[in-house]
């Protein structure tokens, strides 16, 4: 008997199209699986077909596609109930064991066939055009088969038992759709377990487990070694198999072959009720049938509410609500974490977390519920009765749409409730309702609505529920891929782009109206699609698309036609307006166009990369900011000096490449001729009629204006903002070829026929050494600025505030730097509060003004910042050299970026990096203190000492700043905090090293690898000072500054080159006893 049932199950499944659709879907998914799973993450030296990558991809895909396992396994028993087949099956002399086992094994066999698509897909994936041979090891069939057997198979088996049992016991389709989510919840829950071993054991998808297995392997090992089926992986698999078997056993015990008892009970009740009344008079009440528009509206709301309630009352829906809450509570624990310290649960952190977490949920809910609601009548065979009612087609479809929308609203409101509860429980009461509303109702909600319409559309077109599911998912994947391919125009990118992240200072920037218009445009599109759905939807027994197509003319009623006409007009109107704004008013740059431009820039202009240019020596700016109008006017005067030995004939001026910026009125105080042939690149060559000889100077005056296009989707970024303007020297004209416009990604470079890595020729090496920074058009400059802004803002620029006044309802400021500074300055404007203090240098009592400019409400960590500035200034000026300016300012800027950066006398500090950190002095390292100390250290390493633009540069700038900050910490915090900090650095270092794409260079040769110059730098320097003593290290650094500082360094004065790591290590060697000299080699070289 069991073989009969087994065979029957397989034969049945093999006749069903779903089986093949699932297979095909998994197969296609697996083709791009590695790219999908590891999207954007660097694998470092590990190849894309290394065993660990294959294992993680397979495990993740299996986890994501647990819903297919559910759809296959869960329906095995349910099907018999659905088709009223159970009477036949259960009265047969079949015993329970045969029935269940036969069904299970049959379905599982089919499931294996379906999931073999994963194996074949991944194998063939190696030969896909998007794969790069550099990323691949030679093909190894063994890797795939072994991984499939050890990782996927047990997982499938466990999932199969679980879903088979729940499907058989619940006999509800919604349980089957949603149970995949619950397993996902378990997965998320395990992520919250702090014990790593336990976490690895309990991960149902074995993702954490496999990572843990290879934790300590080198990249080489990862490329060659298969993941042994032992240790924690074995325990993990055994654990889940045991859970599976236990579930199976319980299910077996609970399962009852006899029909529902419930029915019988009710039958009895009914018998009592039916036989007592033979009333045959049909008293016809008077009725009127509503035909007005208002009646249609009544019908629409009634039907929508009916659909809403029918889903809302389902147990599975409530379970989703509860699970959503659990996930959120657990995940919100790590909010806006910076270096291991959480931020205050500000609404924008919560919202970002909730959006990210709930997307997967919503996608599943959307795909399945949309299918379910479209098929609602047909699934219970109520469709003919329903279809014979005079409810208009569009009312019906639209009611389904509204019903689902109400479901989403319920979910969103409950998410907000969870978010607020979490904030309240954390003792944080600053609920930002507008941010909740923005994140959910402006961003997530339209997304859900649009994809629901798409899901409806596919359900209607295919008229097969499962095909509809798969196509909707495929469409979602396609929209992601299309975006990755560079389609980013809002008119074509389905649903438009996302909102920028919210900032307390600057809100969403200026994009909101544009964003809403784009959403409106897409929703109109969605409505048109809904009309198509309504006239094509199956109503009655004509199901073929062709038949339905033949009759659309009839179903396209005059009122629908009117509606379509109006919507189309609005659609075209909105489209034209958006097009006008993005492509005509603003210039539209597709990704491809941007890249081509950058490549052309390099190809055309890089021949002048080392062309001698005069250096800027004086900068005088006059800058008027109009934050509300998003405009600025800048007039500037640069004094240029020829510091080379030979005369300079040509000045190469580079304008900031931004369509909204105009550079005009360029006047040199000497006769010139203009060569405009590179205008496309904003690059102008001025030939001096009289060459500039050694030591000669030249004045250049210019006007630069910026005027933001009124209605653009441009996200807030560094530049002019409504509140939180952040301009730097980078935004103003530069001289010579500018490397910042080059393409960076090696692959992209190769695609545009550029060398993957830029090679610096030996003859240019010397020139690089004379450059303090990569764009080096100056050494030291004298700087002064007069600037104005709106009346509610103030501007912070480098230098002493010499004058401050108000005129024409605007605030004016004049700043002047007392001493020459590097050509690296920031100009910030915002509605700031300020906290002031001062610091006196012990030896001569020179006063330094300390100021923190912050956004109102962000007072949390001001004292820590202030304390850190003082402690840092103390330590550095005592041990390295005196502080060079009479002010040190921290200025907050909006969340469009999350860094803090040091400029002469000024440290712009992102809203999200330190201002809102919630530091628990018991358990956290005071990262605000640390970051402030680090940035303050840059006033020495960077402002006083510049390093040559050659490998190792960042060891001098960043690693020394790390060392300095650590020393300040050491003076102010107990040892265990330092240790905690170093442990975190080590952890980060190991993690980032795993992702590195290149061999790890020693510290002294470090280039762009931040994990080396930050994390490793901190650790190695700490070790170094432990061994030879901080005193000695500081002695060396003190000497280093004396010799190499850019103002009056003893050695620096004699040369035009900047110090390198060789120089620095020389000082270290001097202070290191012979016995420990090896340490320098070991730690740095």
């Amino acid at each position, binding site marked *: 008997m069991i073989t009969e049932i087994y065979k029957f199950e397989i034969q049945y499944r093999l006749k069903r199209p779903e089986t093949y659709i699932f297979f095909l879907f998994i197969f296609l998914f697996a083709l791009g699986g590695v790219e999908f799973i590891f999207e954007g993450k660097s694998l470092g030296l590990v190849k894309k077909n290394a065993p660990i990558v294959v294992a993680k991809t397979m495990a993740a895909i299996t986890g994501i596609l647990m819903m297919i396992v559910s759809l296959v396994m869960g329906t095995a028993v349910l099907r018999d109930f659905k088709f009223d087949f159970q009477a*036949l099956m*259960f*009265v*047969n*002399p079949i015993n329970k064991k045969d029935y269940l086992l036969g069904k299970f094994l049959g379905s599982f066999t089919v499931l294996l066939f379906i999931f073999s698509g994963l194996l074949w897909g991944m194998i063939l994936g190696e030969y896909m055009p998007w794969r790069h041979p550099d990323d691949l090891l030679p093909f190894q069939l063994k890797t795939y088969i072994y991984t499939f057997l050890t990782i996927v198979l047990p997982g499938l088996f466990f999932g199969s038992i679980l879903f088979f049992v729940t499907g058989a016991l619940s006999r509800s389709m919604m349980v089957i759709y949603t149970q995949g989510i619950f397993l996902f919840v378990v997965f998320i829950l395990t992520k919250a377990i702090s014990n790593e071993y336990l976490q690895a054991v309990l991960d149902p998808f074995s993702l954490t487990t496999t990572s843990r297995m290879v934790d300590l392997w080198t990249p080489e090992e990862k490329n060659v070694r298969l993941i042994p089926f032992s240790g924690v992986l074995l325990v993990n698999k055994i654990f889940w198999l045991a859970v599976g078997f236990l579930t199976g056993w319980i299910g077996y015990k609970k399962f009852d072959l*006899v029909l529902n008892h*419930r*029915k019988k009970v*009710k*039958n009895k*009740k*009914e018998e009592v*009720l*039916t*036989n007592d*009344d*033979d*009333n*045959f*008079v*049909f*008293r*016809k*009440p*008077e*009725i*009127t*049938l*509503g*035909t007005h528009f*208002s*009646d249609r509206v*009544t*019908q629409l709301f*009634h*039907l929508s509410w*009916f659909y809403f309630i*029918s889903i809302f*009352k389902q147990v599975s829906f409530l379970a989703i609500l509860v699970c959503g809450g659990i996930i959120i509570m657990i995940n919100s624990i790590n909010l806006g974490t910076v270096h291991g310290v959480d931020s205050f649960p500000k609404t924008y952190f919560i919202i970002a977390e909730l959006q990210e977490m709930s997307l997967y949920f919503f996608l599943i809910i959307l795909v399945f519920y949309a299918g379910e609601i479209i098929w609602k009548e047909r699934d*219970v*065979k*109520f469709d*003919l*009765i*329903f279809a*014979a*009612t*005079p*409810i*208009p087609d569009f009312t019906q479809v639209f009611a389904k749409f509204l019903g689902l929308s109400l479901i989403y609203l319920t979910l969103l409101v409950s998410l907000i409730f969870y978010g607020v509860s979490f904030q309240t429980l954390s003792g944080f009461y600053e609920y930002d309702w507008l941010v909740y509303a923005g994140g959910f109702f402006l961003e997530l909600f339209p997304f859900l609505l649009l994809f629901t319409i798409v899901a409806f559309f596919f359900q209607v077109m295919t008229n097969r529920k499962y095909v509809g599911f798969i196509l909707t998912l495929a469409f979602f994947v396609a929209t992601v891929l299309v975006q990755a391919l560079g389609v980013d125009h809002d008119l074509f990118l389905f649903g438009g782009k996302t909102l920028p992240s919210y900032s307390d200072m600057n809100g969403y920037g200026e994009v909101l109206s544009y964003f809403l218009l784009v959403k409106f445009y897409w929703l109109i599109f969605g409505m048109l699609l809904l009309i198509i759905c309504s006239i094509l939807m199956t*109503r*009655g*027994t*004509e199901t*073929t698309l062709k*038949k339905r197509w*033949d*009759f659309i003319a*009839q179903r396209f*009623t005059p009122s629908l036609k009117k509606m379509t006409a109006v919507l189309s007009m609005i659609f075209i109107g909105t489209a034209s307006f958006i097009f006008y704004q993005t492509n005509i008013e603003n210039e539209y740059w597709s990704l491809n166009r941007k890249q081509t431009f950058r490549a052309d820039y390099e190809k055309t202009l890089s021949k002048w990369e080392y062309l001698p240019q005069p250096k800027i020596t004086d900068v005088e700016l006059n800058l008027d900011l109009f934050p509300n109008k998003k405009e600025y006017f800048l007039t500037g005067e640069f004094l240029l000096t020829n510091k080379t030995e030979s005369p300079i004939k040509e000045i190469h001026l580079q304008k900031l490449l931004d369509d909204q910026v105009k550079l005009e009125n360029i006047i040199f105080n000497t006769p010139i001729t203009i060569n405009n042939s590179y205008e496309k690149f904003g690059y102008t060559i001025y030939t001096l009629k009289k060459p500039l000889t050694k030591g000669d100077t030249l004045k250049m005056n210019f006007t630069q204006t910026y005027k933001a296009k009124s209605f653009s989707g441009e996200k807030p970024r560094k530049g002019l903002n409504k509140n939180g303007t952040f301009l730097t020297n980078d935004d103003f004209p530069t001289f010579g070829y500018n490397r910042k416009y080059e393409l960076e990604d090696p692959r992209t470079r190769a695609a545009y026929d550029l060398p993957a890595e830029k090679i610096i020729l030996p003859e240019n090496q010397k020139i690089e050494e004379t450059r303090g920074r990569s764009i080096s058009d100056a050494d030291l400059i004298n700087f002064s600025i007069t600037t104005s802004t709106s009346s509610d803002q103030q501007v912070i620029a480098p230098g002493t505030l010499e004058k401050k006044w108000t005129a024409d309802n605007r605030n004016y400021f004049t700043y002047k730097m007392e001493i020459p500074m590097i050509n690296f300055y920031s100009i910030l404007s915002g509605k700031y509060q300020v906290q002031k203090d001062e610091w006196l240098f012990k030896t001569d009592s020179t006063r330094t003004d300390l100021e923190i400019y912050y956004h109102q409400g962000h007072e949390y960590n001001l004292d820590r910042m202030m304390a850190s500035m003082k402690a840092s200034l103390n330590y550095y000026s005592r041990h390295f050299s005196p502080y060079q300016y009479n002010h040190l300012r921290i200025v907050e800027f909006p969340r469009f970026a999350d860094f803090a950066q040091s400029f002469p006398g000024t440290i712009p500090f992102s809203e999200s990096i330190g201002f809102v950190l919630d530091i628990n002095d018991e358990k956290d390292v005071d990262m605000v203190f640390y970051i402030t100390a680090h940035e303050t250290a840059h006033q020495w390493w960077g402002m006083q000492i510049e390093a040559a633009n050659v490998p190792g540069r960042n060891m001098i700038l960043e690693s020394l700043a790390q060392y300095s900050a650590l020393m300040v910490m050491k003076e102010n915090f107990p040892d265990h905090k330092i240790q905690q900090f170093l442990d975190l650095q080590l952890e980060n270092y190991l993690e980032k090293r795993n992702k590195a794409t290149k061999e790890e260079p020693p510290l002294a040769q470090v280039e762009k690898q931040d994990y080396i110059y930050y994390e490793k730098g901190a650790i190695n320097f700490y070790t170094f000072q432990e061994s030879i003593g901080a005193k000695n290290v500081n002695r060396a650094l003190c000497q280093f500054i004396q010799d190499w500082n850019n103002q009056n360094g003893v050695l620096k004065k004699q040369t035009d080159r900047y110090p390198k790591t060789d120089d620095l290590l020389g000082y270290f060697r001097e202070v290191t006893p012979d016995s420990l000299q090896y340490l320098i080699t070991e730690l740095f070289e």
Partner: protein
Amino acid sequence: MKSPHNRLFVVYPKTKPFDPNNLQTDFKAFKFVLKYRLLVGLNLVYFTFEGSKLANRPTGKLKNMNHLKITNLSKIYPNGVKALQQVSLDIPVGMFGLLGPNGAGKSTLMRTIATLQEPDEGIIQFGEFNTAENKMEIRKILGYLPQQYGLYPKVSAEVLLNHLAVLKGLTNKQERKEMVAALLEKTNLYRVRKQNLGGFSGGMKQRFGIAQALLTNPKLLIVDEPTAGLDPGERNRFYNILSEISEQTVVILSSHIVDDIKELCTNMAIINRGQVILSGKPQTLLKELEGKIYQKTIQKEERSNYHHHYQVLSEKLFLGNPIINILSETPPANGFTQVPATLEDVYFSNIEKNN
């Protein structure tokens, strides 16, 4: 509300009606069910109720306005089955019976009239409306009970009926409430109105189906095998409702129960293989066979013999032995006795011819 003058006196067969829901879960019974169902499917088993006398009711007045005219209706399914072939029927106000074996095209015809299916050819005209072109207009005056349907299991009878009432245009709350209550009472579901439909028996479900078909006082009522699953009492109750309604309404009814059609319908048609093979008033049709039907109880072994020699119309089992009805112009003697012609005989004689 009791109304004794409408009480029916029905003589039931003495044996308990067969109820598949009371089956023991043993295999024999199961096989029996299967067989039973097969037989029903082939129209070989009938419940016949002797002497069921329905009150005489006036024939519906023929109103042109509510006259259904079907002209040359044809439908071929994608799999090649000719479901309807050149079907033409004139259906006036009153009850119209559709008789035919499974797969004859009854349901296709009814669905097409109910605007749920598109004919390949032909026209259906109801009053001033062409049904294919004015679907919404037809739906407004239509009551339809499909042969097979399901109901939302977790919704109560009252809620779903109310729901359908809104969909059908009963947007006035008070009127709707009254109508729903009246129908629930009418169909004897009032006391279980709060109960979820999932717990309904086949009969209760069917009564619900009837209730929903009557929601808007339809001018065109199409009921496809409405009495399947009803016990005889329920069935008669239902027919009474129909006959009341048919005074002003075109009621189209399909049934397996030949005698019911005879009793109920003022007009009827027999359909087989998508074709109308006979249509007219039941009484007229019966007259043609009057005096030509003979009956005999025979032994099982003799069956093929009799089938060979006579035009056997039907065969029933009585105490394990077959009783056969034959059609013969002359008395066959040989132990046959003449019996009055029934509609069943009309049906079989025509199906035979058609086959």
